């Protein structure tokens, strides 16, 4: 006789939760995968529901293969590759969706649930905000409910009960998970994996033409948050440098990679030291934001020759780094002849007027410093305007700005000043980055958004090194002292109708916004930023000297303790667990005790019955006898009397006793 192996089918509760979980898992990834996957998912879901309603058949093997192959091809077409994170996630999601139409047995459901967990993990690579994390808990609970439903019998109740059980287990698991999170050693990446593709990341770029930074100011996107070990320095000291742009082509300042970039710059620490840490949002760039002159002990960051900090790989995730800065440091007191020439580079045939003005200034001010001061004074005293919407400039952009429009944003000022200084023979460069930031008093940090983007100038003097100078300050000091919002009182920043920044003048909304921001800051700092370095610092503070052995042992002990507590709570050994029969006997005793008939501890039930029955009416005696008889049958004779019968007899006894 041939034996057919019947695969156990999927219980209804599980199927319901599986479908819900799938929707929940897919939604956050919709923005990162090709849209046709949604269509595919709808087709597959409809197909599976029709199968459930017996209107359609499961696809045959050949159809499944065809679907897999064409889906993979479609991924290749829309992603241009089958490797890489984006294509990988698209493939994972396709598999996750296609698995739906061959969801027959419990094993298929299991595969789908595990795939779901994995998909949730990949979604963290795209978004690891608090909201995303909170949302993913929903998906995980639904997936767990599907897993629980898979084990339930047909007798199990409503789907609501299933998810309650799943949520209960999840909640109980939190303490142990927390311990593991804190103590499990953070390892270095075992191998390099493809990173998420950049999706139009805004931010400082490696070149700057007039209008670029003004455009950036339209965005209120967060760039980074910085916290200081001590007091937060004054706003006008917060010049967060990202890049220096040494090469000018007549219109645009460019970053230029030089071999000397990799040489450590010459500098001497002077004055006070600032200790700060920065949590930056993913930028897809390698450069970091720092105060001049900064140094860090982090291995993957280096101080470049132009005093910028650079990470060895592009930043694709929220990244935390710590650094020390010496604002008064002596930076590069000596410049090699090549570099000296390099920082004087100017294209020929542009901006003749500006060149001529530079020559005049040079004649009047042989001293570099007084020349710089004269340029600043020029910006300060002439009719210059600071605006987000400057007029367009032509070929001789510096000339037009200096002598015609006199209206511009920071890049106009820094660009023309650097040009004039170079034309006057002073090595100079444009620096781009962010200036200022909004101070959060509750957590003592500064948060910098895209509209804080700024550019300024550095010039060089023999023996004194590089000096920062900001022409914008001469035109719009409030920009530097109070931020862009104040400087542009007339022009409204385009932060959007729905951005809470648009309502910062309303007190409670602003409070909410700041509170939310504080929460995000802590999230980034303490949760997302909890990597090797932070973990080691924290453990050092907790356990003193770190040895992984010690940590391993304490982790195991702590988990065992937690388990003991949880199992005590689950099993409640202090509660006596009575069988139904014994429970009814207790009720019986309590019922009679109310009539002053108390059973002695050593007294047999029969003896007790004989002792008390004299006081009872014949009807009551019968009810009593019935109960005692059934009890004996169950407990001693092992006769299959259902406990429901015993309960009825107890009820009858109660009625007859009450009847008198």
């Amino acid at each position, binding site marked *: 006789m041939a034996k057919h192996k019947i695969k156990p089918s999927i219980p209804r509760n599980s199927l319901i939760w599986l479908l819900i979980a799938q929707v929940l898992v897919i939604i956050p990834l919709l923005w990162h995968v090709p849209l046709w996957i949604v269509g595919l998912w709808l087709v597959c879901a409809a197909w599976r529901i029709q199968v459930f309603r017996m209107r359609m058949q499961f696809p045959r093997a050949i159809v499944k293969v065809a679907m897999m192959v064409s889906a993979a091809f479609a991924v290749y077409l829309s992603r241009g590759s089958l490797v890489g994170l984006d294509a990988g996630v698209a493939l994972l999601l396709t598999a996750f969706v296609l698995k739906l139409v061959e969801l027959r047995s419990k094993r298929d459901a299991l595969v789908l649930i595990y795939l779901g967990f994995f998909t949730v993990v990949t979604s963290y*690579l795209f978004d690891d905000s608090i909201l995303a994390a909170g949302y993913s808990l929903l998906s995980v609970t639904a997936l767990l409910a599907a897993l629980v439903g898979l084990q*339930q019998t047909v007798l199990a109740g409503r789907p609501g009960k299933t998810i309650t059980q799943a949520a209960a287990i*999840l909640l109980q*698991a939190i303490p142990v998970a927390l311990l593991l999170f804190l103590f499990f050693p953070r390892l270095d990446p075992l191998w390099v994996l493809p990173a998420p593709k950049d999706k139009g990341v805004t931010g400082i770029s490696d070149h700057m033409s007039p209008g670029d930074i003004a455009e950036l100011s339209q965005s209120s996107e967060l760039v980074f948050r910085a916290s200081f070990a001590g007091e937060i320095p004054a706003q006008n000291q917060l010049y967060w440098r990202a890049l220096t742009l040494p090469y000018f082509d007549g219109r645009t300042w460019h970053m230029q990679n030089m071999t000397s970039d990799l040489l450590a710059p010459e500098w001497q620490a002077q004055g006070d030291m600032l200790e700060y840490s920065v949590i930056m949002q993913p930028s897809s760039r390698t450069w970091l934001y720092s105060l001049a002159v900064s140094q860090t002990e982090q291995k993957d960051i280096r101080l470049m020759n132009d005093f910028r900090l650079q990470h060895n790989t592009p930043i694709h*995730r929220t990244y935390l780094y710590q650094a020390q800065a010496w604002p008064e440091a002596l930076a590069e007191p000596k410049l090699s002849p090549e570099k000296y020439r390099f920082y004087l580079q100017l294209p020929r045939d542009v901006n003749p007027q500006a060149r001529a003005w530079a020559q005049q200034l040079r004649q009047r001010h042989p001293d570099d410093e007084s020349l710089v001061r004269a340029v600043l004074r020029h910006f300060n005293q002439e009719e210059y305007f600071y605006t987000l919407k400057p007029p367009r400039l032509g070929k001789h952009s510096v000339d037009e700005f200096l002598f015609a429009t006199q209206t511009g944003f920071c890049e106009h000022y820094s660009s023309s000043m650097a040009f004039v200084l170079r034309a006057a023979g002073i090595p100079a460069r444009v620096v781009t980055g962010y200036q200022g930031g909004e101070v959060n008093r509750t957590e003592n940090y500064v948060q910098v958004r895209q509209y804080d983007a700024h550019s300024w100038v550095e010039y060089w003097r023999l023996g004194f090194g590089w000096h920062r100078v900001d022409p914008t300050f001469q035109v719009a000091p409030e920009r530097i002292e109070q931020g862009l919002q104040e400087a542009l009182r007339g022009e409204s920043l385009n932060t959007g109708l729905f951005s809470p920044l648009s309502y910062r003048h309303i007190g409670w909304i602003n409070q909410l916004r700041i509170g939310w921001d504080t929460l995000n800051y802590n999230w980034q700092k303490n*949760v*997302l930023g909890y990597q090797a370095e932070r973990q080691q610092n924290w453990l050092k503070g907790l356990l003193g000297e770190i040895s992984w052995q010690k940590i391993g042992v304490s982790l195991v002990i702590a*988990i065992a303790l937690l388990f003991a507590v949880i199992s005590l709570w689950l099993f409640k050994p202090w509660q006596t667990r009575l069988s139904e029969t014994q429970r009814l006997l207790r009720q019986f005793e309590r019922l009679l005790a109310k009539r002053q008939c108390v059973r002695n501890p050593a007294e047999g039930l029969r003896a007790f019955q004989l002792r008390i029955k004299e006081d009872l009416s014949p009807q009551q005696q019968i009810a009593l006898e019935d109960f005692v008889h059934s009890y004996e049958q169950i407990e001693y004779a*092992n006769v299959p009397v259902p406990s429901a019968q015993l309960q009825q007899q107890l009820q009858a006894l109660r009625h007859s006793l009450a009847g008198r």
Partner: protein
Amino acid sequence: MSAWRHWLAAWWSRRLPAQTRVKLGQKHIFIVPTLAGYAFAAALLLMLMVAINYQNSLAYALTFLLASVGLLSILHTWRNLAGLQLVGLPTEACFAGENARFPIRLQATGRAYQAIGLGWSRQKMLMTDVAKHSEQQVELSLAVKRRGKHSAGRIRVETRFPLGIWVAWSQVDLAQSVLVYPKPIAAPLELAGVAAGEDEVEGLATAGRGVDDYQGLEAWQQGDSLRRVNWKVWSKGQGLWVKQFAELKGAQAQLDFSSLGGDVEYRLSVLCAQVLKLTQQETPFTLKLLEQTIGPGTGVAHQAECLTALALFAGGGHG
């Protein structure tokens, strides 16, 4: 292999001896990961790889949360068996070739039990739930091919609830056995050695219906044969009454093992069919099994006695 099994069985009977009522306790329950559990661990490992390589805190967090859920489900799965009380209920006899049924009562004390599986093989488990403070009766059935007394043996009790990644199990022997009567084979009766011939038996069956012989009921007295007690009446709680029959004349049915041809099992099967038939016809009969003689008598009790004798018949090995 067999020695190992033997040893295992002995070990089990020391740990959890056969008894009608078993409350699953600490030392009776074992817990091991299932195949799905190993797959779960593999999935977690994969997730940990992602967390390490992308240095993603949330990936770490989810991996640890699920690992913790997995560990915690040991307690849940274990708890879903601990304290469950199993009672082996009396069985009903059946015929060879039928399914013997073993009724088992599951009693929950204090907490609900979900998805409890019972059975002899892991592939065929009977699943049931037991609500809090209640009991659930299930019936395991086992195809029996041979007559005799069949013990239920050790029954596997297991649960994979809630996550299916662990299985908690035990093996209980509820001291249940079932009496299996021979498979009835309807063959023409060859009642050798009976005074009356086949025709007369038939005639008696058609004409008599036993009514003439049946005199009525009389109160039971010391010394009366228990075989003649009217059990139907007794079971209604109306006391012990004895059926009175008129003296049966020569034409009395006699079923004699030794008068039949064929091998032992065949003869028992033929006798079994006759016992059923005669009882249905309410014809008094005597059953002779070598040294053992039962009857004359009729009625359900008589039938049961005869069938039991047939089921347990051990002699006549020589045929």
